[in-house]
């Protein structure tokens, strides 16, 4: 890919990050908040790959960071959904306002 596209790529990643921030703050639903968090993680991944590709092409660290972030995001999403389902069984709601106790 053309090297002048680094800045547009980083701007796209910043856009995705702040879209995730907006969604995380405005949404009241736990599953939507989880989806916004996934958006933020993905924007960080784009940054890692772009910097590795264009600024340090001799190394592989950015790629490995991306792979490990993807793995940890999968674990995080699975745990968060388990907690959401547990909260739903207790309170019959997935609104953050209703989730005020763990058991």
């Amino acid at each position, binding site marked *: 890919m053309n090297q002048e596209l680094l800045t547009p790529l980083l701007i796209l990643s910043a856009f995705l990050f702040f879209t995730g921030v907006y969604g995380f703050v405005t949404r009241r639903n736990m599953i939507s908040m989880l989806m916004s968090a996934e958006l933020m993680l993905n924007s960080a991944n784009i940054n890692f790959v772009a910097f590795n590709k264009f600024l340090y092409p001799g190394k592989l660290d950015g790629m490995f960071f991306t792979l490990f972030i993807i793995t940890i995001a999968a674990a995080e*999403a699975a745990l968060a959904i388990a907690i959401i389902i547990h909260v739903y069984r207790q309170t019959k709601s997935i609104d953050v306002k209703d989730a005020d106790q763990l058991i």
Partner: protein
Amino acid sequence: MESQTVVFYLISALTAFSALLAVTASQLFRSAIYLLFTLIGIAAIYFMLDQDFIAAVQIIVYVGGIVVLIIFSIFLTQDSGVEMRKSEWWRIAASGMAALSGFLLTALGLVEYNFVTQSDNLVTGGVKELGRALLSLNAGGYVLPFEMVGLLLLAAMIGCIVIAVKLKELPEGKENIQ
């Protein structure tokens, strides 16, 4: 303009648009589908950057795993057609302004900053190279984080089972383990 540049801007526009819809759609199920399109767009960007392995992992883990899990939990916890409760207008206005100003500040900084890009023929990031570095014990190898991530996934799996399991009603006189 080169054709690759045009394709890049098309994919970026699609990704950004569906990300915006994913956080503003009023139905939760639609929001999940827009998130799916965003993740596919990001995988396409990885393909454009010649990172085939990371793009494949992105599609397998995110599109095939996390989004399916999210849709699954939407069906478990609520009716998919129900509209979500709207936030208060001041919350939308304040967070919209915060996100917009943050984005503009970051974009301005990125445009002003001159990145010194390197020539791009040193590394390909192919599967062979990544696999060798992942299991290498030498300096620059990643075998310890690899093992740690395996342990983390095991812990997360056991944690999910413990949290989400439905406990059976035991007969009188027997204590539940939890």
